[in-house]
């Protein structure tokens, strides 16, 4: 029933077994149809930390902040040792490897360009010599 008080509680207040006030800090970001979302962030950060972190942000940034906290909490639950910091390490390694590969390919290109330019310039010198001989003739 849409008007039922019980079903209008957000996932956080349901989890915490308390009344959900109209100005509840959690309710826009933890809807009742996704109880796992709040359970996850609560497990890592705790309700008061989440509430405080959201409260300290302007309203238009809170949704993204809540999403990021949820992703980080999921990472931490899945990987209790490294959490999402594991992704940062992996990305650093991949970037380093890509930079190395790019440098190799660019060095090969430079090598070819260099050799080609030298060959071209010696051909031009030969042509120059030929033309000046013709002029003198």
């Amino acid at each position: 029933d849409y008007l039922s008080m019980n079903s209008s509680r957000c996932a956080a207040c349901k989890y915490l077994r308390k009344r959900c006030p109209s100005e509840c800090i959690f309710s826009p970001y933890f809807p009742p149809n996704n109880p796992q979302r709040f359970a996850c962030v609560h497990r890592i950060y705790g309700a008061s930390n989440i509430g405080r972190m959201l409260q300290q942000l302007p309203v238009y940034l809170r949704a993204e902040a809540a999403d990021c906290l949820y992703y980080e909490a999921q990472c931490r639950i899945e990987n209790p040792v490294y959490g999402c910091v594991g992704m940062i390490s992996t990305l650093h390694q991949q970037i380093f490897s890509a930079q190395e590969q790019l440098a190799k390919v660019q060095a090969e290109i430079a090598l070819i360009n260099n050799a080609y330019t030298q060959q071209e310039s010696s051909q031009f010198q030969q042509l120059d010599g030929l033309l000046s001989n013709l002029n003198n003739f």
Partner: protein
Amino acid sequence: MKGSETRSSSSCAACKFLKRRCTPNCIFAPYFRSDEPTKFAKVHKVFGASNVSKILSEVPEEQREDAVNSLAYEAEARLRDPVYGCIGAIAMLQKKMVELQHDLTIARARLAHYASSSPLLNDDQAITLPPPIDPSPSSSSSGFPESFLLSQQPIWSDEDLN
């Protein structure tokens, strides 16, 4: 002069912060030394002492130092960037990775073009291209997006990520 409670001079940073006695089997003591007070303060501010204690107790002892360091990193990131935290850093690194892949694709194409059209190369001088890199960062099984689309610019700069 004499204090009402005796604090051990080897009280760890966590117990000093929490103003409690540091027991010999304190879970925090090996990882939050008293000469690094801000490390625990930051972790406490973001995660809370009991959550950190719970996370540490679920991790094998030999991995707890890594766990603490990654929690400290995450807490620092969250305090610097209260909206995106670590996700801001991940988004920047993913963006850098996409740019590098783009540059690499173009460079390989150029090299292949030169290799096929250059009169300098004999048949036995074939250029071997380095193998392509795996384009996607190893994502976890929980279905994280391959790239985070943020509506605001994260606080992280290039130097922070190096």
